[in-house]
């Protein structure tokens, strides 16, 4: 038998208190008698009795002390480990995604409770069982690999930290599937609050879900209206009860405005803050009140500097392209058909050069480039012209939402895709459009003239142009301004100057290992800042990391977990018999005996 909590043993100090109270309670009343002759006689007789009978005189006290000891014992939550796990190897998968931060009971989050349950499970394992521990959120992490050291396993479990990353136990289960092939008998226990498929897995799920009330700020956005900042926040109430909340708007930690909102259960509400007088770096919106997850009660947004991207369009005439470019915000277009004087233009340091049917002898050293219907041996090779073909899109960010787009082209170059590029337009297996980064420059190439295709007639045409230009003009220090915890942020530092530095929400600084990396250490919530000293000029960019809204919906029981499959879903680990209730019943019995004894004495 083992004890779950040891602190109640401290209450045993009450035993002397009971004895003292018993002595105090027995304040003797002075009672004169004629003589003690007979009383002494009686006392001699009582003393002559057995020690047991002597003890009987104080059995009320003994019963009280016994009751206290039993109650203290009950508080220690004793349990018997049955050691029922027969497998030689045990794999514990703990979901430490953002949703597990929701409260399980008054004292514990779901993750803390999962860790406690997992520790009980470890204790219940027979000695020599190989224990593996995996944490799982958007990816699986092997914390402990096949160790038979229980204390090490307990310590590793204790050290598991919560994350704010969206995810569940699925990556962990995938890892289990790979691991279990090396062993004959494996039991997997998965501690999670969401649906997980345990197919091909020998084991069960321990459900950490409990019904809770939760609300959160799902989204914060901003815009300008008549030169004034307008902020929009979407407040969602995931619980069943209507909630009245104050919504606070902060600008760089300074309270700007407060609004009150009533959100019915299961619904969301949009709150507008007009005429916000703020010129700082970051906005945050926070709702008041206690609920299951406090981290999702605040959401951050970053104000971007309005930068005008300068675009040089070298073309004889392309109305389609010009019209499409006009729809792109934030660009300033200069058009020219004089390729001979291109060198003069380069002094203007354009952010994007679009070469439509013409190409200069010397390509610009800085700035991004887009080539249309033109050969440029310095960058890529054209293979052969094709005629009368249908062009389809390939999967790329440029063709996002345009997966079904196809269009006919009367004449097109098949292109040799360089290593640094990715295809986004194709004819069969042949590449007719690619985009990629060569050194510091983004290069986008299309092997046909818009005039020779029906693409401009397609509804998707302006979107494609918009995406291409956007892909070629994201030239700031960072690619994204608002992400969820655990997401990747691309950092595009200027080459050949000092390496960029990441400033974390807590103020700590981290020098990045390269000029251009995909930054993944976005586990803390708040506003991050990247700075780089570019030849004496300190360039800064900020991005916000928020709690993933998908993980805030912790108020609905996952169907599979709460389903009827009791073989794989449990609410506690097996192998542990909780003795607390039994002991409380014994304590009540003792109290009853004491009461009867008190009445009868």
């Amino acid at each position, binding site marked *: 038998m083992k004890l779950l909590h040891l602190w109640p043993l401290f209450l045993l100090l009450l035993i002397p208190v009971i004895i003292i109270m018993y002595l105090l309670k027995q304040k003797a009343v002075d009672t004169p008698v*004629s003589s*003690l002759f007979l009383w002494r006689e009686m006392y001699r007789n009582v003393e002559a009795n057995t020690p047991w009978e002597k003890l009987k005189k104080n059995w009320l006290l003994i019963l009280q002390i016994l009751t206290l000891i039993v109650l203290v014992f009950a508080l220690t939550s004793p349990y018997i480990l049955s050691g029922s796990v027969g497998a030689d190897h045990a794999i514990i998968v703990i979901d430490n995604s953002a949703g597990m931060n929701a409260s399980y009971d008054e004292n514990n989050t779901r993750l803390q409770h999962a860790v406690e349950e997992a520790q009980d499970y470890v204790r219940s394992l027979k000695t020599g069982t190989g224990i593996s521990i995996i944490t799982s959120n958007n990816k699986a992490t092997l914390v402990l690999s096949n160790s038979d050291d229980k204390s090490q396993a307990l310590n590793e479990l204790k050290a598991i930290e919560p994350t704010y990353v969206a995810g569940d136990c699925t990556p962990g289960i995938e890892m289990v599937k790979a691991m279990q092939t090396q062993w004959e008998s494996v039991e997997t226990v998965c501690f999670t609050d969401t649906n997980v498929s345990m197919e091909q897995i020998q084991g069960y799920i321990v459900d950490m879900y409990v019904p809770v009330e939760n609300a959160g700020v799902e989204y914060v956005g901003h815009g300008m209206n008549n030169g004034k900042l307008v902020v929009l926040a979407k407040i969602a109430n995931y619980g069943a009860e209507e909630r009245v909340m104050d919504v606070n708007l902060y600008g760089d930690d300074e309270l700007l405005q407060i609004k009150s909102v009533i959100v019915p259960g299961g619904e969301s509400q949009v709150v507008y803050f007009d005429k916000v007088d703020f010129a700082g770096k970051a906005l945050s919106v926070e709702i008041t009140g206690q609920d299951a997850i406090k981290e999702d009660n605040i959401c951050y947004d970053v104000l971007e500097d309005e930068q005008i991207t300068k675009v040089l369009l070298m073309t004889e005439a392309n109305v389609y392209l010009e019209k499409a470019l006009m729809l792109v915000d934030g660009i300033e277009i200069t058009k020219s058909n004089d390729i001979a004087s291109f060198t003069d233009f380069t002094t203007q340091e354009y952010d994007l050069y679009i070469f439509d049917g013409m190409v200069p002898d010397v390509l610009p050293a800085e700035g991004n480039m887009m080539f249309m219907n033109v050969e440029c041996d310095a960058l890529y090779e054209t293979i052969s012209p094709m005629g009368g073909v249908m062009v389809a899109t390939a999967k790329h960010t440029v063709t996002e939402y345009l997966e079904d787009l196809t269009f006919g082209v009367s004449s097109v170059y098949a292109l040799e895709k360089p290593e640094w590029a990715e295809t986004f337009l194709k004819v069969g297996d042949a590449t007719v459009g690619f985009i990629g980064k060569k050194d510091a420059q983004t290069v986008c190439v299309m092997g046909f003239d818009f005039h020779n295709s029906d693409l401009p007639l397609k509804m998707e045409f302006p979107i494609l142009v918009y995406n291409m230009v956007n892909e070629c003009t994201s030239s700031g220090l960072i690619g994204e301004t608002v992400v969820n915890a655990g997401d990747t942020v691309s950092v595009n530092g200027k080459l050949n100057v000092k390496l960029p530095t990441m400033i974390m929400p807590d103020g700590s600084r981290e020098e990045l290992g390269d000029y251009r990396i995909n930054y993944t250490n976005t586990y803390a919530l708040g506003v991050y800042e990247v700075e780089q000293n570019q030849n004496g000029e300190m360039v800064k960019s900020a991005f916000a990391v928020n709690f993933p809204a998908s993980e805030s919906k912790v108020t609905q029981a996952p169907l599979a977990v709460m389903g009827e499959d009791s073989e794989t879903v449990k609410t506690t680990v097996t192998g542990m018999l909780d003795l607390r209730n039994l002991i409380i019943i014994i304590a009540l019995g003792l109290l009853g005996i004491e009461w009867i004894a008190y009445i009868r004495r």
Partner: protein
Amino acid sequence: MDKIFDSEFYSKLHTLRMSIAMRLAAGMSGGRKSNAKGNSVEFSDFREYQLGDDIRRIDWNAYGRFDKLYIKLFMEEKEGIFQIFVDTSKSMDYGAAHKGVCALRIAAALSYVVLENSDRLYLNLMKEGKLECPKSYTGKQAFSKVIDYLENVKFDGAGDLLSSVHHKKFDRRGMSVLISDGYSEDLEDVFRYMKFKNQDIVFVHVLAPEERDPSFEGTVKLIDSETMGDMRMTMSASMLKSYKNSYRRFIRDTEILCKKYSAIYIPVSSDDSLDALLFGALAKISPRR
């Protein structure tokens, strides 16, 4: 304390005399008829004259009638000696029905009977190992003195019956009545001493109802009224049961002790009615010759 001797008490005394048949052989001539034939006016029997008989007691009328010398035999009247010992220690100052008052009433009643019979009465108050004993009383007229004396008795101090009784010089055979609660380890020695001094012993054992059936609850500090010694104990049903066992054993042992010394044992509860006292308990007093 109640008035010890009230009008009811006096009216009962007159009837008491009729109910107690006490006879005593030894002692001076007195109002009591002795079983011994002797020198008194009250005729008992005749017998033939023998040599050495007092010629003054020859019945000459009988000689005239029968021509034989007959001697008239008369009931000899002797004065009885009565010693009444009253335990006046503090332990007797106890009880809602006061043990001391009860003891004094019994002493007075016995005194009345004794004086009515023209016997000699000695009142002995036992206190702190000493004996307070005024001169003897005799004759009915002395009863008022006895009452005066008894009314001023104070129950105080520790009791030491044996030391007290040692102070008594028993000159002649007589009857000794000891009125006490008997809380003494030396009771047997007291009896033995009295017996040695040729006394017929009557032990009037006075105890209060509270002593027979105590009703203490909780934790009490029992304080001995004589020694001021104390005992701390928590009263429980079993504890009181043990006490009652001790009490019964005490009564039984005392009764056995009385039998051993041919003493008349009269257990009295201080709440007994006067009738029960006078016509029940005391009526048992019938000393053997």
